[in-house]
């Protein structure tokens, strides 16, 4: 889901936002509207991650998916100003999201192309019990559809479970779940990944060194993601765990099931975020009612907070502005599908003309950021990775899918700027990606191959 979030609401927000994109277990500022969506998104993400969980770490996947869902849209009275600012910063947001998505895809494609492990078939997840080694095409199709149904229902169940947990305020449980899943991702998957990469390049590494490396990597990752850390490091860790998750998916999902699942999950995304009774939407609304920050643990945020060192008088002056802002925030909130991008609207700050805060407002303008759920990262990377792994046209297909996904993301962000509510980030991109994959692989490849063999140029 892509959501907009306001950056600077409370004095703590900047601190939290800046140092840690995702707040840890408990919402730091209960009255903070922004956090509310973040926590919702986080829970949604955790939920999603769990839904799509692999055999090894169900939590991770659910978490990854859900993170995006919360996005409250704050309509400010100064809509024009808002629109202008939106469009002006819209391009910046797009770039801010392009870079991490591209990085994640590059990591996944590079791994797929070099490490043989991730393209070998070594079994399937328990979520996809039906095999695809069947003699007939019809049987294979049927099996993949059944696999998809099972996977999607697991996801739905997990999402609903998360919403229920959130509704009944079982925060500790949710936090524990999140921590467990990120523990698994950071330690177990990294260990396997590192092992396979070392095997591919025939590099020997002794166990003590390995232990040291993985321990440091994992510990710093846990701190960065769940507590406080430099923004860049946090973003880097999020990209890495998304890539790891995507690699697991690529390895363990059988071919046709993977494509059908991608299609089905974008439809589900669309429904979960936009339907009134959709779980993600309910999550967002509940969080909004309670004025709580959402778990930021599973959202990628590109916001830069510059207002870390606020002096006392400033914070005091921000008090009133905060109130006005919070009040304004009450009304908007839409969770988009698993991936929400939050764009910070600075106009919420502008209505409050307090003298000491003007400088804050100016600074805060820089804080606008966009939040995208980790689930979106994961599925984009799964699409591109599968294209790289299975397409016979190799790089052309991969490149085409990459461009298609980025254009889809662009369009989604454009719609975000227009509608100003949480939007599902999966459907458009995945549709484009799928269309381009199948068409490039079957239509463009023979054409380009023939052209290249005759050295003709178009």
């Amino acid at each position, binding site marked *: 889901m892509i959501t907009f979030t306001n950056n600077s609401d409370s004095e703590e927000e900047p601190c939290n936002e800046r140092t840690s994109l995702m707040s840890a277990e408990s919402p730091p500022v209960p009255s903070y509207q922004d956090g509310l969506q973040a926590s919702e998104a986080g829970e949604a993400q955790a939920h999603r991650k769990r839904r799509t969980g692999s055999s090894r770490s169900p939590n991770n996947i659910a978490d990854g998916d859900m993170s995006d869902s919360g996005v409250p849209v704050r309509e400010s009275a100064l809509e024009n100003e808002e629109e202008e600012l939106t469009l002006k910063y819209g391009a910046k947001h797009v770039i801010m999201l392009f870079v991490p998505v591209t990085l994640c895809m590059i990591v996944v494609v590079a791994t797929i192309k070099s490490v043989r492990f991730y393209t070998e078939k070594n079994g399937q997840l328990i979520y996809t019990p039906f095999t695809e080694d069947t003699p007939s095409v019809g049987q294979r199709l049927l099996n993949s559809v059944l696999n998809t149904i099972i996977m999607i229902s697991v996801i739905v169940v997990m999402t609903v479970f998360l919403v229920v947990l959130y509704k009944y305020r079982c925060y500790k449980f949710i936090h524990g779940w999140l921590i467990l899943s990120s523990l698994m991702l950071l330690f177990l998957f990294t260990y396997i990944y590192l092992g396979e990469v070392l095997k591919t390049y025939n590099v020997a590494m002794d166990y003590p060194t390995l232990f040291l490396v993985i321990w440091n990597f994992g510990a710093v990752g846990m701190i960065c993601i769940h507590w406080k850390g430099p923004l860049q490091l946090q973003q880097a860790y999020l990209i890495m765990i998304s890539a790891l998750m995507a690699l697991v998916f690529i390895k363990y999902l059988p071919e046709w099931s993977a494509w059908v699942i991608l299609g089905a999950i974008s439809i589900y995304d669309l429904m979960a975020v936009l339907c009134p009774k959709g779980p993600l939407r309910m999550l967002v609304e509940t969080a909004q009612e309670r004025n709580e920050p959402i778990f930021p643990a599973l959202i990628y945020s590109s916001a830069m907070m510059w207002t870390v060192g606020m002096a006392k008088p400033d914070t005091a002056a921000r008090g009133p502005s905060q109130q006005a802002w919070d009040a304004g925030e009450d009304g908007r909130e839409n969770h988009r599908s698993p991936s929400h991008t939050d764009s910070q609207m600075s106009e919420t700050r502008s209505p409050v003309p307090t003298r000491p805060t003007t400088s804050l407002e100016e600074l805060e303008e820089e804080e606008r950021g966009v939040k995208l759920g980790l689930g979106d990262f994961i599925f984009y990377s799964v699409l591109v990775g599968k294209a790289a792994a299975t397409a016979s046209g190799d790089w052309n297909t991969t490149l085409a899918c990459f461009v298609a996904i980025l254009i889809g993301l662009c369009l989604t962000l454009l719609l975000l700027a227009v509608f100003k509510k949480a939007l599902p980030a999966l459907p458009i991109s995945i549709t484009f990606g799928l269309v381009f994959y199948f068409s490039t692989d079957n*239509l463009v490849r*023979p054409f*380009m191959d023939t052209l290249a063999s005759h*050295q003709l*140029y*178009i």
Partner: protein
Amino acid sequence: AFFWLVSLLLSSLIWFIAVKASDPRDQPLQKGLLIFGVMFSVLLQEAFRFLYYKLLRKAIEGLVALSEDGCSPISIEQMAYVAGVGFGLMSGAFSMINLLADALGPGTVGIHGDSQLYFLTSAFMTMVLIFLHTFWGILFFHGCEHRRWWEITAVVVMHLAVSGSTFCNPLYVGSLVPSYLLMAAAAAWAYLLSGGSAQNLRRFLLCK
């Protein structure tokens, strides 16, 4: 880039259908179909460039309406340049990337009697095409802006000529030389259209 990709998709769809509907053993027919495919693809690319121009025009109008001082933050010339670069990069990437991937592996160039300069000439041809696309972007948009149809037709004709000249491959002098000459001409034309002049160039070169 996206628009170029879509045009490629559509043109390969047409070619694919044509090939499937025809006899695969008839060599001259296949060659003819290929030529037809190439020409059709060129025309489609230019058509998509035009569509892209229309889209950007609307975008600029929107930006102007929303901006504070009545002018958009990015001019149509800049957009023309970016569009050209996008087209060129996509076309270049699609032409070269499989070649590059294969070049990493083992093999001997031209072992079956083909030209040994395959990689080299491919690289040069791709480079000239990328440059040409950039210049054509500028020329095309300028022609659309000022309603000079002859500029647009000149771009289309140039594109057809360059693609057609590649049919001379492996007689590389027949394809590379005309392409480079056309590129120099297009470069000069685009430079003049963008407001450059001989004086500017002299001043730039002499670091004044």
